[in-house]
C-alpha cells in the first residue's frame, strides 16, 4: 500500500516541482545544514525504499554501519552482540512502533503472550504450549495464521514479533531444530520492520513538511529545523530534501495524497472498523443483550477463569471447560456444574421457563458466595 502511495505521491510531486522551480531554488539553501553528513539522493531514491540495501544509500554513516551489521546477522544474538548497532536499530524501531522489538528476548512468556492482540493466534500459541505438540503441521499452521494476520493487518508489529519469539522459545525448549528457522524469520521481520519504519518516517516527514510549507505560504523562509520543531524524539532517521512548491499545488497534492491513502487503506480500515464493531457486538452479546441463563453462565465462566486461571477458548465446549476445571476450584465446582447443566438444557435442549431460570440463578448465587468465601 505504501509503495503505491509513494509512487502516486512521487508523480504528483514531480508535476508540482516542475511547476514551481523558482521557489524551490530559493528554499534549498535552508536545509543544507540539516542534511550535513547525510547522503541525500533526492526524492525518487528516498521513496523507492524496499530493502535494507535501499536504506544504505540514504543513511548516515552510523546508521549505515548498524544496517550493514543487520544484513550480516542471521541470529538475534548476533544483532545484540554489537551494542552500538543494536542501540541504533532499537531506537529506529522504538520511535516507529513504540516497542522495543529487539529487546523482546528479555520478556517472560506471559508478558509476550499479553502483547499478542490477535485472539486466535494467542489461543493457538497457548494450546501449543499446553499440549507441547509441536509437529510440523502445528508449526506450519501457526506460522501461516501469523503471516496471514500480518498481511491482513489484524496483528500489530510488536504482537507479531512477540508471537515469533514465543514460538521460538517453545521450539528451543523442546529441542526442535525448527527454532532456528523461526529465529531467521525474526531477523527477517526486524529487517522488514526497519524498512517499513524508515519509509513511514520519511513519508510522515514529507507530509509534515508539506503542511508546514502551506502554513508559511506567504514567506517561504522555512527552514527544516524550525518546521520540525524541537520537541520530537531525536533518533537516527533518514532525512531528505524537499523541493518547494506553490501553496495551491501543495494543497492539491495534500488532498490527492489523502484520497490515495484512503483508497489504498480502505481495506485495512474496513477490517479495523469491522473488528471494533465485532468487539463491541461481542461485549454487548456477552454482557447485556443475552437471555438470563446464558448471561449467568458466561458470568460464571469469567469468575471461574479468574479463580482457576483456566481459559475457555472459543473452540472449547461447556462440558470440556467443566472437565478442565474439575478438582481445581474447590467449593465453586458444585454450583458451576449446576450452572453448566442449566445452560446446556436452556441452550441445546430448548428448556426454558421460570423454574429453570430460578434454578440457574440459585447456582450462580452459590457460585458467587463460594467465590467470596474463597477469596476471604
Amino acid at each position, binding site marked *: 500500500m505504501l509503495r503505491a502511495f509513494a509512487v502516486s505521491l512521487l508523480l504528483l510531486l514531480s508535476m508540482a516541482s516542475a511547476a514551481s522551480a523558482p521557489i524551490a531554488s530559493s528554499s534549498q539553501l535552508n536545509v543544507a545544514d540539516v542534511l550535513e553528513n547525510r547522503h541525500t539522493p533526492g526524492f525518487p531514491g528516498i521513496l523507492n525504499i524496499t530493502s535494507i540495501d535501499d536504506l544504505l544509500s540514504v543513511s548516515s554513516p552510523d546508521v549505515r554501519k548498524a544496517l550493514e551489521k543487520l544484513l550480516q546477522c542471521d541470529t538475534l544474538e548476533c544483532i545484540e552482540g554489537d551494542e552500538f548497532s543494536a542501540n541504533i536499530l532499537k531506537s529506529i524501531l522504538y520511535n516507529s512502533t513504540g516497542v522495543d522489538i529487539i529487546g523482546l528476548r528479555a520478556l517472560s512468556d506471559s508478558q509476550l503472550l499479553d502483547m499478542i492482540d490477535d485472539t486466535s493466534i494467542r489461543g493457538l500459541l497457548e494450546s501449543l504450549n499446553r499440549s507441547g505438540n509441536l509437529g510440523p503441521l502445528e508449526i506450519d499452521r501457526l506460522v501461516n495464521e501469523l503471516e496471514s494476520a500480518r498481511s491482513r493487518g489484524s496483528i500489530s508489529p510488536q504482537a507479531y514479533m512477540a508471537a515469533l519469539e514465543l514460538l521460538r522459545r517453545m521450539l528451543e525448549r523442546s529441542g526442535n531444530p525448527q527454532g532456528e528457522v523461526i529465529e531467521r524469520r525474526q531477523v527477517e521481520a526486524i529487517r522488514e520492520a526497519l524498512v517499513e519504519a524508515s519509509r513511514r518516517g520519511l513519508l510522515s516527514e514529507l507530509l509534515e513538511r508539506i503542511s508546514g510549507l502551506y502554513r508559511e505560504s506567504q514567506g517561504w523562509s522555512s527552514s527544516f529545523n524550525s518546521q520540525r520543531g524541537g520537541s520530537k524524539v531525536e533518533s537516527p532517521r533518514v532525512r531528505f530534501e524537499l523541493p518547494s512548491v506553490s501553496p495551491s499545488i501543495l494543497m492539491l497534492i495534500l488532498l490527492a495524497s489523502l484520497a490515495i491513502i484512503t483508497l489504498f487503506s480502505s481495506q485495512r480500515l474496513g477490517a479495523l472498523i469491522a473488528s471494533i464493531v465485532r468487539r463491541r457486538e461481542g461485549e454487548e452479546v456477552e454482557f447485556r443483550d443475552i437471555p438470563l441463563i446464558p448471561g449467568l453462565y458466561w458470568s460464571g465462566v469469567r469468575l471461574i477463569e479468574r479463580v482457576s486461571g483456566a481459559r475457555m477458548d472459543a473452540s472449547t465446549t461447556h462440558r*470440556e471447560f467443566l472437565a478442565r476445571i474439575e478438582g481445581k476450584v474447590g467449593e465453586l465446582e458444585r454450583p458451576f456444574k449446576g450452572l453448566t447443566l442449566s445452560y446446556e438444557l436452556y441452550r441445546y*435442549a430448548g428448556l426454558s421457563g421460570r423454574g429453570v431460570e430460578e434454578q440457574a440463578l440459585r447456582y450462580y448465587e452459590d457460585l458467587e458466595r463460594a467465590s467470596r468465601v474463597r477469596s476471604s
Partner: protein
Amino acid sequence: MIAKVVEKASSILVERDNEIKLMLASLLARGHILLEGVPGVAKTYTAKTVASLLSLSFKRIQMTPDLLPSDVTGGFVYDQRTGEFKLRKGPIFTNILLVDEINRASPRTQSALLEAMQERQVTIEGVTMPLEEPFMVIATQNPIEFEGVFPLPEAQLDRFIARVPVGYPSTKGFIEILRRADEIEEAIANLTPMVSREDVLNAIKEASRVRVEDSLYEYIARIVEESRRHPAVKLGGSPRAGIAIVRLAKAWAYIEGRGYVIPDDVKAVAIPALAHRIILNPEYEVEGVKPEAVIKEILGKVPVPRP
C-alpha cells in the same frame, strides 16, 4: 436400552468402548461402518459382540479376490425338480453383515456390495428386492497390506458413515486381554441378545428425532468447510460428510441418554465421520500427517456456538 448394549459389550471387550459406541451410533444413524486396523486388534470380535447383543440376523462374508457379486447378492438357480429358476438369496439379505477384509474383494464385487449399501436394495436379474431394516454393513480392512488387495476408492469410502481406526490397546489393557483371553472368547460365544429388532427400529426412529439446535448446524457446516480450506487438504468434506456428522451426532446423543445434541457430540463423531472423506496433499502425507490430526486441529480452531 442401547446404552445397556454398550455397557455389556464394553465389559467383555477391553478398551473398545469408543468403537462399540460408534458402531451402534452408525446403526442408529442408518449408516455403515468401516473398521480399519492391523490384524489381531479385535475388529471382528467387536463386530461379532455387538451383533450378538442385538436380536438381529447376522451374517459374515470373508472377502477374497475370486468372490463374485452374485456370491454377495445371490442369484437365480435352476431347480431340477420343479424345472424352474429359483432365487437363492445371498448373505447380504440380513440385518447386520460383517464383511471381513473388504479390500480383498475385487472392485466388481466391492461395487455390488457398496451399491446395495447405498440403495438398501438389491437387483438380481431385473428383480429389485429391498433389504430388511435395519441393515448395516460392518466392514473391516487392514490398511497396511498392498499385495492381493484392492483399496476402496474415495467415492466408495464415502458410502461409510464412519471409519474407525482400531488401534492397539494400552499396556494395561493388553495385560488384561492376556489374562482374560479365554474368558473373552467364551463370553462372546455365549452372548444372548439384549435388544429385539423392534427395539432397534424404535431406537432408530427416536434417534432421528433428537433435537439439534440451529447454531449446531452452523457449527457442523463450519467444520466441514474448514476441512476444505485447510492447507494440508487436497479434497475436503462434502455435504454428505456434514449430513453424516449430523446423523451420527444425533445417534451419539441418543446413546448418551440425551434428547438433544451438544457440541461435544459433534466433536466425538467428527473425526470418524470426516477423516476417511478427505484427501491430503502429497507433501503432507509424506511428512506423516494423518487426516485425523487435521480434523482434530480444525476442531480445536472452529468456535463452538456462543453464548
